[in-house]
């Protein structure tokens, strides 16, 4: 019978409207009483302290090795008196000169599997407002290679009007040192195999970066473009062996274009290939050296360069901050809980006082 049910729903609706207008809607009215707040304090305290301890444990299980190579000595440039020159001075005099330097390091405890190689820069403000804006995402998607947005200025076009590929200050200042790792053994040194793919965010590779149509060379996809001002090779020479990692899809470029938030940062450079013999379970104890093709000048702004070898954990890299913060907050919570319990017992108003009101009770004592 439809008539009674529509009647019923009309009645219900007008009852609801009545309640709505008279502000008598059904509602939950919570009050902060001691029997909800104090258990909450104790619960949070008891939860956070072990959680912080667990986070600290995870952070401590990450192994890390840092090596600053800003002032490493060249192996083929010497001063007048026979001492080796610093590579940083070599490239200051002649930026096009190839300076190779080596830094030894020892691994004291073996690193567990999935070791990653990073380069770290200090005092490099990738978060400067004009720097962050200086890119053209349309060009990086391969859509337009003849005009670029004004954000790229002054690194948009060269003096003859040809467009830089890729344009902008971020791309122009791309990190171009080459890092290689060698292990020192009795029979000589062997180079470690490093993987150059799988270092950029998958979403970036798929969605934000794409090559323009055509073959990746000077007469195909990039025929209207010229290489950026500070680069020594063209964008289609970044990885000629692997067409999936060349041009705008080169993972080193993608990693660099994701500008860092803080002046001291690290970016993933390579992954250690654990299919090498002897490295199946990680990086074993031994003597190694880092060989650098030193090209990137950081001296003019007082910057530093380092190499970092690190494993990861459930939470990412080595960071004690969260663990310590959780333990601190948990302890403060417990302390507050105890203090408030004492205050409640000694000074809290009991239910008799709370309910003992009449029209003459003042608003607040």
């Amino acid at each position, binding site marked *: 019978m439809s008539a009674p049910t529509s009647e019923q729903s009309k009645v219900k609706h007008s009852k609801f409207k009545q309640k709505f207008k*008279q502000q*008598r*809607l*059904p*509602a939950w*009215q*919570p*009050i*902060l009483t001691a029997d909800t*707040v104090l258990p909450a*304090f104790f619960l949070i305290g008891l939860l*956070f302290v072990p959680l912080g301890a667990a*986070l600290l444990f995870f952070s401590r299980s990450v192994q890390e090795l840092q090596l600053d190579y800003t002032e490493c000595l060249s192996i083929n440039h010497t001063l007048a008196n026979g001492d080796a020159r610093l590579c940083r001075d070599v490239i200051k005099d002649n930026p096009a000169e190839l300076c190779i330097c080596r830094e030894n390091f020892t691994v004291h405890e073996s690193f567990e599997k*999935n070791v*990653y190689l*990073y380069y770290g820069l200090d005092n490099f403000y*990738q978060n400067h407002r004009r720097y*962050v804006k200086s890119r053209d995402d349309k060009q990086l998607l391969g859509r337009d290679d003849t005009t670029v947005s004004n954000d790229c200025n002054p690194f948009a076009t060269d003096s003859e009007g040809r467009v830089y590929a890729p344009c902008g200050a971020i791309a122009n200042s791309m990190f171009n040192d080459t890092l290689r790792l060698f292990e020192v053994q009795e029979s000589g040194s062997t180079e470690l195999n490093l993987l150059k793919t*799988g*270092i950029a*965010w998958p*979403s970036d590779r798929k*969605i*934000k970066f794409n090559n323009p149509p055509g073959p990746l060379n000077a007469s195909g996809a990039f025929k209207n473009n010229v290489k950026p001002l500070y680069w020594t090779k063209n964008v289609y020479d970044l990885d000629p062996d692997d067409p999936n990692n060349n041009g705008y899809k080169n993972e080193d470029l993608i*990693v660099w274009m*994701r*500008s860092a*938030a*803080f002046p001291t*940062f*690290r970016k*993933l450079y390579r*992954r250690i290939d654990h299919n090498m013999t002897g490295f199946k379970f990680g990086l074993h104890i031994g003597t190694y050296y880092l060989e650098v093709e030193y090209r990137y000048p950081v001296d003019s702004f007082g910057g530093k360069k380092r190499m970092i070898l*690190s494993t*990861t954990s*459930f*939470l*990412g*890299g*080595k*960071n004690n*901050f*969260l663990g310590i913060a*959780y333990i601190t*907050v948990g302890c403060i919570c417990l302390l507050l809980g105890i203090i408030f319990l004492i*205050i409640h017992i000694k*000074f*809290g*108003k009991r*239910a008799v006082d*709370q*309910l*003992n*009101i*009449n*029209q003459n*009770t003042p*608003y*607040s*004592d």
Partner: protein
Amino acid sequence: MFISVYNLFYTSMPVLALGIFEQDVNAKNSIIYPKLYTPGLKNALFNKREFFRSAVHGFVTSCVLFFIPFGAYYNGMDQEGRSMTDQQTFGSVVATILVIVVTMQICLDTSYWTLFNHITIWGSLIFYLLLQYFYNYVLGGDYVGTLAKAMGEPMFYFTSLLTIVILMLPVMAWRFYWVDVAPTLSDKVRFKQRHDAKMASKRIEHDMLRTPSARRSRRSIRSGYAFAHQEGFGRLITSGKIMRPRNPKPGNVSNGRASNFRPDVNKFKMAAPAPSTVEV
């Protein structure tokens, strides 16, 4: 884009619902206890001191909102070693935690939760995520993939839990202290309302337990002695529900018959202006 839509889309609806539906005591009690209106007369809830206190609270909140994720994401990596310290990730994390914290703050401020409050508050959070997705994936914004990646790592959840607790606990502690040690009249009336509601529901429970015969006899108070196979009024009489009025008016003849059943009329009058202690 975040700054433009923050005020419009993410935070306006809960405040609107708060403004329309919020009540600390119901309409009946507002009239009984006129001293509830004292803070309005004294301008106690919005003056220069409160504004200054609000501004300082905002400043401290912003500092915590920046420095806790800063410490957590300082050399952040994801589980596959990729760097998570980029400017877009950091910005997305801080913005998301901000929206959550602001919503939690309004949860603390809401004391009368109607359905609309629930819809606007939880809806704001869901709408934030939906709008982020829509703007980046559908309209092609440049933060595409950032929030999804950040929220796919456990670090984000630990950081946001820590930030929320650090920001909410002092507020909760402060309010609890004042309600416990020096409750205002508004708090006391709210306690009383809750207490009365509890008592009323207890009474209804008690009423529900009464026997069917008593209920039947309430419906029809004609004499039923002729129906010998019924229980009769034994239980009704012995339960004391039929009572002579304590001070019968002159001229009122009570013949003991059930039709002169007068319940205790004084029980339901409004509270008299004389001071009285309420039974606890």
